[in-house]
């Protein structure tokens, strides 16, 4: 991994403002499909949500699955995506 690892990280993507993949690694190595879906999600979500309903803007978008999650952040006009493995609680 090129970047500092995040707990449970299995892959990462960095996109530019137009959604093109800049860097990638791990599970998401050159995963343009996931990149396109998540980039579309943060652009479409803005059109669908009413800004008056929220007093502050969002810092992080998480797409949760049963055993993993995609975490999306925006920094320096680049979209950072990290795939994280969920720690399943032992029942």
């Amino acid at each position, binding site marked *: 991994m090129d*970047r*500092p690892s*995040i*707990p449970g990280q299995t892959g990462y993507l960095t996109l530019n*403002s137009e959604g093109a993949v800049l860097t990638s690694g791990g599970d998401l190595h050159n995963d343009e499909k996931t990149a396109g879906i998540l980039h579309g999600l*943060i*652009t479409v*979500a*803005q*059109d669908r*949500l009413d800004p008056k309903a929220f007093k502050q*803007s*969002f*810092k*992080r*978008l*998480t797409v*949760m699955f049963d055993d993993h*999650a995609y*975490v*999306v*952040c*925006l*920094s*320096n*006009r680049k*979209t*950072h995506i*990290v795939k*994280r493995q*969920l720690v399943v*609680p032992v029942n």
Partner: protein
Amino acid sequence: MGCCWSLFCKDDNSLQNCEPNERTHLLVDPVSNNINIQRVNSDDLPSRLSNDLPKKTDEQSALTRILQETATNVIDVAALDTHNLQQHEYLERVKTYNIKVQHVLTSNRAVLGTKLKSCLLQDIPQPEKCLASDLIGSEDTNLVSQSVDAALNAVNDIKVDHKEDLVVPFGLGLN
């Protein structure tokens, strides 16, 4: 086509003294053709000015017509040359184009603004910190799931209770 052209030129040889070869001009020079007429007119003009007023106007109109025809046939290459821009012309153009761009930007601000700001997330300085922070807890996830399920069920339960006719005679009793 070639035959027609050569025959035409041979007919005109006596008048225009043209010998069609590879250097013959395809376009007839209107200025050289009109020089004779113009000279004759200008030579006769002083005598006609004094005694013949209607003819003078005719001459003038003919001259004007020749001038106009010449002007339409002439292509001013020097005026078409746009590469030799002077500095002040260049600055003027920059100013004009900037004004036009600003005009387009202001008129399309709504469209461009949504394109530029169509990202849900706000720009944060340290993405690693945000990405590494704890994910949403399972309790919160369950709460959201249950709420969405309840909302979905509620939406699916919406029914139209039909009580009255949709189409009713309106205002017929007044007539």
